[in-house]
């Protein structure tokens, strides 16, 4: 046996042509790694094109995973290992690879044509271009076909199994069991036994090849991480949203009405919701974003919980109805899965630049509570909480996610259904003396009166309403009063929702504040800096509106406050205005998550300069 070396954490990037099955490969590696009890985080990196011609640079499909014996919060800035199935994958993948990183290459794909398409003037395997990396050239296509000699498939079909050959090699390198993947193959191809045979053979052949050949000298082991006991599954942000919404609907005992119009990266949520009709979920693919939210508002009026999801350009279209929902004070959840903007922008790239739009993108004083998810699995809890607040306060709620969370996946500890917090709804009942705009003392919420209930007939609309009665009113003082009620109602949400906990000491040199998907990066950096003895702490905002009560004190307890954001400083602006504190921003608008390395460097510099 070759020697086995223990290491703490590894980042692997699988890259190949869109047709090379890299997402399957990545997902299989992920599950196996999770079962081996490492902590992990993953990120697929799809091409923007639907199906680019084979071999092109823009057709490269990637999948990155970081796994560790410690806690992991990001898929890793840069990879230790790059698996490159063709020249384009190599070309595109090199910039993600660490110096001295490992490259495993399918040399069979290095034809002149493919090299040219990948913008290589010469074969990089031959001209020293890969100096400084540990290169493992493997004739994967040929070896796969050889291993499958006896299988009853065409040459072309056999070659399609080469991703399992590659996976087999990586399993050997990281001392992983093949069993979970073999079981998955058996289930997946249950109706096509020949493919079970082929894929399993390829997988094993890859493992055996790595074990046998002299080019692989060492295998690695990442020991088990301390992970909370429980049942886990791998979940993407979009899937988690769907499940969170359904859970909230079930807990409330109310049907979810999900009206949406497809848009990257939100379409998937509609696709998931449409599957779950047996939960009484109602899905409508409307003719546009306006109709989608309009139907959701209508459904809320009639007693379902209206939900709609979209991305930036769709939010713009929905904003008139969001203002309307503020006026009629009905429960509604609007989900914005942010992407690179402005305009059509970079639809498949991540960004956090819709925060100010969420807060202010409506005419008049139209306050809406805003909550943001911090990780793929957290999308479940965030969607759940959005529904809960929407019904409790009779208000539209905006939930923010982004491309990175939507497509990214991480292990989700499956919660106990019975322990989910209740979703309470205050209905007006037949027989009540109903005044549509009479408010609850504490929440300021009005009551929900459902059409169909005798005696509660009433009329709602977008014109200003008289306090209590809800009749149309142009009275100046009433308008001022109602405007302040609407603001105060949203402000009071802070009295009811859980406050975030500060991570690290309650005072020190630098407080890092984040929101949304930068959570993982910031947590990783702050953990490292604390380990290194720096006086750095971390406060992650879940609700962006209203801000938590405790925030102000925290801000005052640090010499510097840093807000890293994938925008030009939107939360920073809010905090400065609200607390008059000279908050510093760290802003990269590159369509990519902020990297651990660059953020760490920034904070270290900040501390030095104190």
């Amino acid at each position, binding site marked *: 046996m070759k020697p086995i070396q223990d290491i703490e954490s590894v980042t692997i990037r699988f890259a190949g042509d869109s047709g090379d099955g890299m997402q399957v490969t990545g997902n299989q590696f992920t599950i196996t790694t999770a079962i081996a009890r490492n902590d992990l985080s993953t990120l697929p990196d799809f091409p923007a094109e639907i199906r680019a011609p084979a071999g092109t640079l823009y057709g490269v499909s990637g999948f990155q995973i970081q796994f560790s014996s410690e806690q992991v919060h990001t898929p890793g800035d840069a990879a230790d290992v790059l698996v490159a199935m063709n020249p384009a994958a190599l070309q595109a993948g090199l910039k993600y690879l660490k110096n001295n990183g490992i490259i495993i290459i399918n040399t069979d794909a290095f034809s002149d044509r493919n090299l040219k398409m990948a913008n290589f003037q010469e074969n990089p395997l031959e001209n020293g271009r890969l100096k400084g990396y540990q290169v493992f050239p493997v004739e994967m296509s040929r070896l796969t076909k050889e291993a499958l000699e006896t299988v009853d498939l065409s040459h072309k079909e056999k070659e399609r199994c080469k991703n399992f050959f590659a996976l087999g090699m990586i399993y050997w390198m990281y001392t992983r069991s093949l069993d979970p993947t073999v079981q998955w193959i058996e289930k997946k191809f249950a109706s096509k036994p020949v493919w079970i045979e082929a894929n399993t053979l390829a997988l094993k052949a890859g493992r055996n090849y790595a074990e046998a050949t002299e080019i692989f000298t060492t295998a690695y082991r990442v020991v088990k991480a301390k992970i909370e006991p429980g049942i886990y599954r791998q979940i993407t942000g979009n899937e988690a949203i769907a499940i969170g919404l359904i859970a909230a609907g079930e807990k409330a005992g109310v049907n979810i009405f999900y009206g949406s119009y497809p848009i990257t990266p939100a379409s998937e949520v509609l696709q998931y919701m449409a599957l779950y009709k047996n939960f009484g979920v109602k899905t409508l693919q409307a*003719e546009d974003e306006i109709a989608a939210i309009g139907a959701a508002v209508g459904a809320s009026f009639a007693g379902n919980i209206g939900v709609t999801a979209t991305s930036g350009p769709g939010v713009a279209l929905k904003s008139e109805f969001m203002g309307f929902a503020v006026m009629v004070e009905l429960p509604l959840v609007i989900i914005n899965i942010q992407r690179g903007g402005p305009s059509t922008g970079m639809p498949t790239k991540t960004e956090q630049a819709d925060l100010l739009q969420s807060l202010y993108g409506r005419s008049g004083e139209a306050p809406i509570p805003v909550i943001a998810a911090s990780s793929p699995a957290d999308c479940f809890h965030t969607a759940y909480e959005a529904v809960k607040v929407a019904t409790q306060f009779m208000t539209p709620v905006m939930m923010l996610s982004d491309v990175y969370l939507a497509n990214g996946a991480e292990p989700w500890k499956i919660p106990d259904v019975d322990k989910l917090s209740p979703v309470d709804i205050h209905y007006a009942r037949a027989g009540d003396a109903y005044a549509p705009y009479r408010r609850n003392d504490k929440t300021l919420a009005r009551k929900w009166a459902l059409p169909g209930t005798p005696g509660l*007939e009433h*009329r709602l609309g977008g*014109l200003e309403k008289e306090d209590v009665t809800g009749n149309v009113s142009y009275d100046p003082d009433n308008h001022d009063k109602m405007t302040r009620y609407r603001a105060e109602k949203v402000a009071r949400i802070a009295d009811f929702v859980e406050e975030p906990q500060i991570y690290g000491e309650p005072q020190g040199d630098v407080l890092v504040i984040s929101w949304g998907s930068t959570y993982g990066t910031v947590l990783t950096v702050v953990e490292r800096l604390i380990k290194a003895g720096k006086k750095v702490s971390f406060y992650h905002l879940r609700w962006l509106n209203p801000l938590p009560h405790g925030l102000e004190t925290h801000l005052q307890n640090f010499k510097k406050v840093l807000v890293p954001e994938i925008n030009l400083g939107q939360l920073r602006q809010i905090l400065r205005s609200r607390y008059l504190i000279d908050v510093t921003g760290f802003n990269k608008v590159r369509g990519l998550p902020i990297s651990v390395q660059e953020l760490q460097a920034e904070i270290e510099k900040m501390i030095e300069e104190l």
Partner: protein
Amino acid sequence: MADNPAVDQKSAKANFASDQDVRWCPGCGDYAILAQMKKVLPEIGVPREKVVFISGIGCASRFPYYINSYGFHTIHGRAPAVATGVKLANPELSVWIITGDGDSLSIGGNHLLHLCRRNLNVNIILFNNQIYGLTKGQYSPTSPVGKRTKTTPYGSLDTPFNPMSLVLGAGASFVARTIDRDTKHMAATFKRAAAHKGCSFVEVYQNCIIFNDGAFQSVTDPKIKQENLLYLEDGRELVYGADNDKGIRLEGLKLEAAALNGPESRNGLLKHQETMPDEAYTYLLSKMTERPDLPTPIGVFRALERPTYDEVFMQQIDDVTQKKGKGNLKELFITGNTWKVD
């Protein structure tokens, strides 16, 4: 029928009157429509609490405030979208969309047509006054070419929509027209709309006394209207005129007006069929208003049943539930690849 229908009806009518002051201009055609609606509602057999009126923005769209049922005065052009949510959330409700020509054919055209194609079981009442009333007199997509309005001081250039042709092109299953001044006809038409299972579209010619007075004079002026109006009745020939002395017949694929002056002159007269499966017939009816030589048809153009959206929508939910079993959260949570850490 009750012993004293007159009294009953009156009390029932009051039953649907809301406590809000009606704020249309004195003389506006909207009043007559409101009166008929309040009269018809008690007769359609749906209790007040199951009736929902949904409107966009415009003079017409203030309507829901004046009916004592559930009401939703939404945003400009979007009532069909909201109505879709209301009806799918609770298919038992009797849903009425009240809209104006600007509301439904300008900003809201798309929603209206998608509603028609889906055939949601709701009733759409379009108050067509060929003008923007609430915003004080701009031309609308039904204003005729050459019309001078505040925004077309030198005359409008836009060929108007033919609302009937448009909704037929979108596949509307029930299409009718009535007139604010013809109260009985209006009441009857509303009842037919309510009775139709599917998306009912009713165009009401409505006089805006302030900004477009007399737009429909040719069909409302007692002196001339008989010559210009064709009452559609299922199974009856297309005959009109004060003395029923004119009829419509088909020449090739074209409608022609014919003087009826002898028994054989009736040969070839078209007979109205609401359920005519031939697309062309109803379409030709819709186009009559574009022909100065033909009368304006009013009444039910088409009443064809096909599955309603709410019906198949709920059915699919039932079918899937039947097949998969009622959803169970615990099972949903543990779908896919799971693993256990102890």
